[in-house]
């Protein structure tokens, strides 16, 4: 865990906390704060070497290209991938949507050597995902299933509100072509055994997609350890800027896949009728990318590496333990969170007699940032049996005093509503 002295020095790296020293920011699962190093890296691009990448035959153009590619290499290293397996997108939602379309555009034989057929998706193909998914993961798959007339099956929860891996064994069959699962839930922080699902998927000849949006930068993530064929995440939840995200795709798959977004920078030859594609990952980054964003994300990764995700996770686990204990002592409290050991640092809760929106509003007045609502995980909320929750999420710059402030804010809300 990070010591309180370390946290004080970490906080100094974030201009937001100099501006708002009393603010208990417990909403990093929505978006994290930005360290000065990330701001500096982006500022340097805009002030010192702004130019477009892969084109400029002058020094600044080369510098921009080099920094952009360095960022790709940093991100790849951070998740145990190779640089050519990393595609920059505008965020996890864009990654998820683009991936589904890329799969649709690709030849089935390129992805499944044993199986025949010209296109990736056939009506009889089945998709298996979970009730824990964020809408960014779920809805593109739902739409794919609707377009193709395929079945979309959902892995349910057990009585202890964990993913039902036994059910997954029977839901994932030889007909399954895609299995998709969230690595860390944005509602309960639950870190799922994605490897277990990946092994089942691969044994049945299916591809494994992992939504690692709440996980990367919060817990150790390695695409090979997870058995992920595809994995995606956003930069802004891991200290990077908004508007940048990543799609990882296994190299041998990516090399044979077709783009789904077309334009400049992705072509090899262009004729009147059609075009051929350049090598991956450039094939999947049509148009001028978010250069500053990528450079900022690279700087975020380098910043996180100086502290270490293992250390960060140990810290947020400690905060989760503390929060579960302190919140658990409040009368009328209902907690929706994975046990600290398998929690990425997110705790949802409801309080009897107070709607989550009212709770979050009063907390806000008390300088405690929470999130309230269904957290874009409607199926999960239904499975948990609540329409909405309030959510506190922890990151490297949080301390136990932030949680103390949260507890006081909840008591204040209870006092207002008890009157």
């Amino acid at each position, binding site marked *: 865990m990070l010591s309180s002295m370390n946290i004080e020095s970490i906080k100094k790296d974030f201009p937001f906390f100099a501006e708002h020293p009393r603010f208990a920011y417990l909403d990093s699962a929505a978006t994290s704060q930005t360290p000065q190093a990330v701001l500096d890296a982006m500022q340097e691009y805009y002030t010192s070497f702004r130019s477009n990448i892969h084109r400029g035959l002058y020094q600044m153009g080369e510098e921009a290209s080099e920094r952009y590619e360095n960022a790709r290499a940093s991100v790849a290293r951070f998740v145990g991938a190779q640089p050519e397996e990393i595609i920059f997108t505008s965020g996890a939602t864009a990654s998820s949507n683009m991936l589904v379309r890329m799969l649709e555009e690709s030849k089935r034989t390129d992805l499944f050597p044993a199986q025949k057929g010209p296109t990736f998706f056939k009506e009889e193909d089945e998709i298996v995902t979970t009730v824990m998914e964020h809408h960014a993961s779920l809805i593109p798959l739902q739409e794919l299933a609707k377009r193709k007339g395929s079945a979309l099956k959902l892995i349910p929860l057990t009585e202890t509100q964990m993913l039902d891996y036994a059910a997954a064994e029977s839901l994932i069959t030889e007909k399954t072509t895609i299995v998709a699962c969230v690595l860390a839930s944005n509602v309960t922080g639950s870190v799922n055994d994605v490897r277990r699902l990946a092994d089942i998927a691969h044994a049945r000849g299916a591809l494994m997609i992992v939504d690692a949006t709440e996980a990367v930068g919060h817990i150790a993530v390695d695409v090979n350890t997870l058995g992920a064929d595809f994995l995606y995440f956003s930069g802004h939840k891991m200290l990077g800027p908004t508007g940048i995200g990543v799609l990882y795709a296994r190299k041998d798959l990516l090399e044979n896949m077709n783009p789904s977004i077309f334009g400049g920078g992705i072509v090899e030859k262009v004729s009147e009728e059609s075009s051929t594609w350049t090598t991956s990952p450039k094939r999947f980054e049509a148009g001028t990318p978010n250069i500053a964003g990528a450079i900022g994300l690279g700087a975020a990764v380098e910043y996180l590496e100086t502290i270490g995700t293992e250390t960060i996770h140990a810290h947020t686990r400690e905060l989760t333990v503390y929060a579960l204990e302190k919140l658990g002592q409040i009368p009328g409290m209902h907690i929706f969170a994975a046990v600290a050991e398998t929690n990425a640092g997110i705790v949802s809760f409801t309080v009897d007699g107070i*709607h989550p929106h*009212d709770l979050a509003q009063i907390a806000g007045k008390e300088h405690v940032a929470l999130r309230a609502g269904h957290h874009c995980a409607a199926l999960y909320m239904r499975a948990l049996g609540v329409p909405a929750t309030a959510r506190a999420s922890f990151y490297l710059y949080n301390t136990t005093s932030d949680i103390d402030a949260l507890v006081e804010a909840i008591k204040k809300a209870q006092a207002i509503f008890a009157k």
Partner: protein
Amino acid sequence: MDEELYKENILDHYRNPHNKDALDVYDVRGGGVNQTCGDELEFFVKFDEEGKVAQATFLGSGCAISQAGASMLTDKVKGMTLSELKLLAPGDIYSMLGIHISPGRANCALLSYRALSDGLKHHE
């Protein structure tokens, strides 16, 4: 002051909502969903023989703002004609609540109004 949003009359309506019930016989019935939290609300209206609102009720659960708003709206619309109902606007709801509604809570404040508007759209 800090608790301005949660004034006593808002909390009163929240704790003891007026006309929180379904109508078996109604002229207008509409629903609304608060997209931020998934809260759902139904609004019912029954006119008398003169064409004025005789009964207005709502069903649903939600935050203090949406529930108090719905409760107050059932009182407010009583005696109104169909055309008067159609002339209601978000501004009327904000004045009725009498508190400052931040943009983040607009969906909560307007949930019952949207349910009523939905019903009016399907009426006739």
